[in-house]
Each structure stands twice: as C-alpha cells, then as structure tokens.
C-alpha cells in the first residue's frame, strides 16, 4: 500500500496538501455515513456513492471560483460538499427534511444550492449537459468571465445529448469545462460495451475541443489538468474536455448486486488505486503529513458528520400543506 515506486517530489505545499486530503476524506466518511443511514432506512430512494472517485471532484474544484457554476449527476454528494454546501444541509436533504438544501424534496439525486451556483444533481443521464451550455452562454453574452463545469459519467457519452451539447459549446465558443468521470462502468455496462471507440478524448477532438486524459485517482494530476483547462476556458479558448480515469468502489446504487464485475477486480482497485491511500502514502513518504495529523483530521470530519446527522435528525419535515409550493412562482407565497 505504500508508494513503492520512486515518485517525483510532490509539487505541493503542505497546507494545500492537507486541504486536498481532508476534502477527499470528508467525502469518503460522509458517504460511508450515508450508506449506514440508508441501511437504517433514514435515507431512501436511490443512493449513488462516489467512494473511490473523490480525487476528481476535489481536484477540479480547486480551480473553480465562487462565481463559476457546477452541474452534476445523481452521484454528486462529493461535489456538493467540496463546493461548500454545508454537510448539514446535504445530510438533511438526503433525509428528505425541510432544512435540506432542496427543502428535502430532491433527496440524494437533486442537491441544489443556487447561492453557491451549484445547479444540482440531475437524474437523467446526459440531462445536465445542454443546461451547462446555456449557463455558459448567459455568461458569455453578459461579458462575465465565468466557467461552467459539468460532470458526467462515461456512459453519458453514448447519449445524443452529449454530442449536441459539446458541438454547440464548441461552435459558439462557450466557457464550459466538460468533466467526464470515466469510472469504467455505466451501471453494469463496461465502456467497451457501450462505445465503439473507447478513447473518449477522440470524441471531444472530433468537435475540435481540446481534450486530455487524466489519472483520476491522483488528486494532484486532476488538479493540475483542471487548472490548465480552466485557464484556457476562462481565457476565452472555448470549451475543454477532461477524461478522468477513475473507478467506483461501491455498487452503482444500493440495489446493485454487481454481477458484472468480479470481486477481485474491485479488490485490486481498492488496494492499488484508492485515491485517498495513494495520496496519503505520498504525503507520508515525503513527511508532509503524519499519523497524528491524520487522526486529528478524521476526528474533525467525524464531528462534522455527526453534527450533520444530528441536524438532519432534528430537522422538521416539510408540512404536507406546502406540497404545492413552488410548482410555479405563483404558488410561492
């Protein structure tokens, strides 16, 4: 588990390194708690865990400012957390409680926080991609140098909506960062069973969109790639496409018996490619972090999550009488 290969010295400052690690661990622990709460039937519906893929959200987010916009899939708890949506309001949302970031109405798949320009989880594969183009168009037309980052799985690349959206973004030179989270499976379907060309960067290139494959298990590689890409997008270079090669350690959702991949494959990935282990090992190898510091971190995170659960537990349900609120603005009262 330790970094056996001689890695080059880490080009990362200690404080920042701790921040990255902390964010990844926050996601991991938060979602472990979600899984627990699912089993306890506090969380219901679909629950899609990001465990194993934390480096992607954490790495990309480092280059986004508060003015930039984000859109995600139903696997978006990590993104919301790193974006700064309070763990409390995310957990309350997962519980379906009134203090949830979407009033409890969206649940796991529909975290929204418009004040943080977090434009939600979307439960339709590919559904957020056209929207991202529109947000970017609004920025462009209003002369704001904001970036819109949209996350989607590699499965979405087979959807027509992906192609229409990336073409439009490229054609109109829109500031969209396409973040493809290639975790190798779309539910139970491996990439080579959904795409005749499995090099997804080739697809982006067929729209003249600059595209880079990135080791999505290496948070620094993600950060570095995203920084370059965001720079180019923000400078008016049009959209960019990043393919993050990653892996989902857990089931697709809570109902998935994982018949489509072997336990060995999953174990191997967990053992060899866990982004948190990899990064921890590297930091330890360079003496940038020690076990006590990690312990403190874990403790703080555990406290944050306990607080979130506590908050969610105590939060009220939305009164049934308010069911009709906000169907349109007229019912807003």
């Amino acid at each position, binding site marked *: 588990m330790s970094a056996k290969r001689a890695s080059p010295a880490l080009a990362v400052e200690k404080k920042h390194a701790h921040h990255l690690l902390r964010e990844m661990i926050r996601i991991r622990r938060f979602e472990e708690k979600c899984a627990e709460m699912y089993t306890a039937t506090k969380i219901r519906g679909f629950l899609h865990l990001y465990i194993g893929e934390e480096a992607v959200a954490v790495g990309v987010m480092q280059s986004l400012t508060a003015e930039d*916009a984000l859109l995600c899939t139903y696997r978006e708890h990590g993104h919301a957390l790193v974006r700064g949506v309070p763990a409390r309001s995310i957990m309350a949302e997962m519980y379906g409680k009134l203090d*949830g*970031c*979407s*009033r*409890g*109405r*969206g649940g796991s798949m*529909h975290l*929204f*926080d*418009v*004040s943080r320009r977090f*434009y*939600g989880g*979307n*439960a*339709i594969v590919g*559904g957020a*991609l*056209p*929207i*991202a*183009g*529109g*947000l*970017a*168009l*609004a*920025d462009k*037309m*209003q002369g704001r140098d904001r970036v819109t980052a949209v996350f989607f799985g590699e499965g979405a690349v087979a959807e*027509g*909506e992906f192609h*229409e*959206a990336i*073409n*439009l973004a490229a*054609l*109109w030179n829109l500031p969209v960062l396409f973040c493809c989270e290639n975790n190798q499976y779309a539910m139970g379907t491996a990439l080579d069973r959904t795409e005749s060309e499995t090099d997804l960067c080739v697809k982006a290139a067929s729209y003249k969109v600059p595209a880079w494959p990135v080791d999505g298990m290496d948070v620094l590689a993600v950060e570095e790639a995203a920084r370059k890409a965001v720079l180019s997008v923000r400078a008016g270079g049009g959209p960019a496409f990043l393919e993050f090669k990653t892996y989902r350690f857990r089931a697709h959702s809570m109902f998935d018996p994982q018949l489509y991949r072997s336990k060995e494959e999953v174990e191997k990935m967990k053992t060899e490619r866990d982004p948190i282990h990899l990064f921890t090992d590297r930091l330890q190898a360079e003496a940038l972090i020690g076990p006590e510091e990690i312990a403190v971190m874990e403790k703080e995170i555990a406290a944050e999550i306990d607080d979130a659960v506590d908050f969610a537990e105590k939060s009220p349900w939305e009164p049934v009488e308010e069911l009709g*609120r*906000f*169907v*349109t*603005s007229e019912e*807003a009262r």
Partner: protein
Amino acid sequence: MSGGSAPVKTNYRECVRAAIREALQNDERVFIMGEDIGRYGGTYAVTKGLLEEFGNDRVRDTPLSESAFVGAGIGAAMGGMRPIVEIMTVNFSLLALDQIVNNAATYLHMSGGQLNVPVVIRMATGAGRQLAAQHSHSLENWYAHIPGIRVLSPATLEDARGMLWPALEDPDPVIIFEHVGLYNVQGEIAEDAGPVDIRHAAVRRPGKDISLISFGGSLPKALEAARLLAGEGIDAEVVDLRVLRPLDTPTILASVRKTHRAIVVDEAWRTMSLAAEIMALIMENVFYDLDVPVARVCSREVPIPYPRHLEEAALPQIPQILEVARKMVSQGVNHG
C-alpha cells in the same frame, strides 16, 4: 391591453414578429435562437429581418440539435437571460421533451423554490398544410399535462402580438403554440397594441344557446360555425381558451352555466385530447347545469395524410360542428 389608437392592417405572422422585435428592443437580456431563424428568415418567415436588425449575438441560428438548444435556452434563463427559443415545429419538439419535462418543469419545485427558469419556447403546431403524418402533430395536450409550465395558444392577432411580453416576464417556463394555419390570417389591430393578459380564457362571441369551446387553429372554425348557426337562429357563445395550462376553469364553467350545452373543438386526436379534459372539468363542476352531454369535435384517429381531401376529412371541420350543435340544441331542455 391595447389603447385607443388607430387600427393598422397586419397579419398574425407580423404580429408575432413585432412582439419579438419589441422584446429584443426593450430588454437586453432577451435573445432568440432556433433553427433557421436568422439567415433563412424563419421557416414561416416569422423572424425575417431580425438578424439584420439585432445581429448574430441576439438572433442565433442553431444547429439541428433540438435537445441542446432547448436545454441551452433553459440554462441561459437560469443564468439571467430571457431567451426566446424557437422550435421550428411541435413535431421536432419531441426531441427536446426531456429538457422541457425533466429540467425546465421540475427545477423550481425540486430545488425547493431556488431555481427559476424564465424561458419562453415558441413553436408552430398543427396540420392543414398537407405536410403529412410526421409534420402535422397537435400535441398541446401533452404539454398542458405537465405541472410547472404555462402553455399559451394565441389565436388572434392581439394575442399573437401581446402574449410574448408577459410570457417573458413570467419567472417560469412558458410554451407558446402558434398554429401554422394562422400565420397568414389578416386583420386589424391597434397600432399601440401591447401586452395582453395570459391568465384567462376569453369569450370571443357571447351567446346563450350553446358554448363552442376552442383554441388556436380551431378557433376560426368555431367562430365561423357560430356565425352560421346564428343564421339558423342558434346563438352560440365562443370561448377561446387562450391559456392551456393552467386552464381558466371559471370562464369555461361560467359559459356552460349560461348555455347549458357545450361542444369542444380541438384539432388533436380525440382520445386523451385537451377536449377530454374540458369535458371532465364540466362533468366535475357543472354537471347539473347540462341539458345534454358535452360533445367534442376532434381529429380522426389517424396519422394525418398528405392529400387535401383526406387531410380535410381527418381534421375537425365546420359542418361537423354545425351538425352536432343543431342536434344538441334540438334535443335539449329549454331553460326559458
């Protein structure tokens, strides 16, 4: 509503264009996008001249990517713009339904009230131009089924001219259906005609014997039928629904309470049509006011065929309205 200025001769197409033009002039956040609205001038020539006047940035020709540009309209609305998205015809809107139903219509409620989508989507609808089975749909009822959107159906010059601005002011998604048969309709409107109400149905012709309830491309048929019925001594009231979602139920019911008889004229296929909903509403609310059961005149349940005689036979026609009306009036109890 329009002021008292002198009437000018115009047509429906020009009214829609004037409304778009005015919106582009009055609000910098407004822009329009769609297939062939710019260089080509619009399939139905609605947007002709706008590109030259407002430029590429605000009059955007899109690729043939209905899902992407409708979604982009939704996103741009979320980003502070006031987009007018033109889907060339309702037939192609099937390719954009996911964006409309799953995103535009749900965002506000699903986000707990955070996320408004002030987009306006216009599309041509309906049959009657011999464009055959894939180009003659009337799916207003589908859209009017979806909570979270407002659906408008301008059938008069005033509404063609006046519905767009309030639609743009609406903080929520609005779909506007323009019937292809109306674009060439000529008439007069006040020179300073402006915004109209987008909440209520309108009684286009008052009458006491029977209500003809209609909208969009069928309204002229209902009006003509009423004119002919008048010659036979039957005084028909014509209700133009105007707003297909949310329906203005009080106006519909008031008319039926007065006339005790109603026919719904709707170009959609009969089964699961908007007409069915009107009948259901009447059943639920003013059942005991009815002298005879409500009837509907709708399209035959066939893919609309190309040849004129078959297309005409497939669509609702005035003689059918007359026949049903005569029968209903002759049967009915007289409420002196």
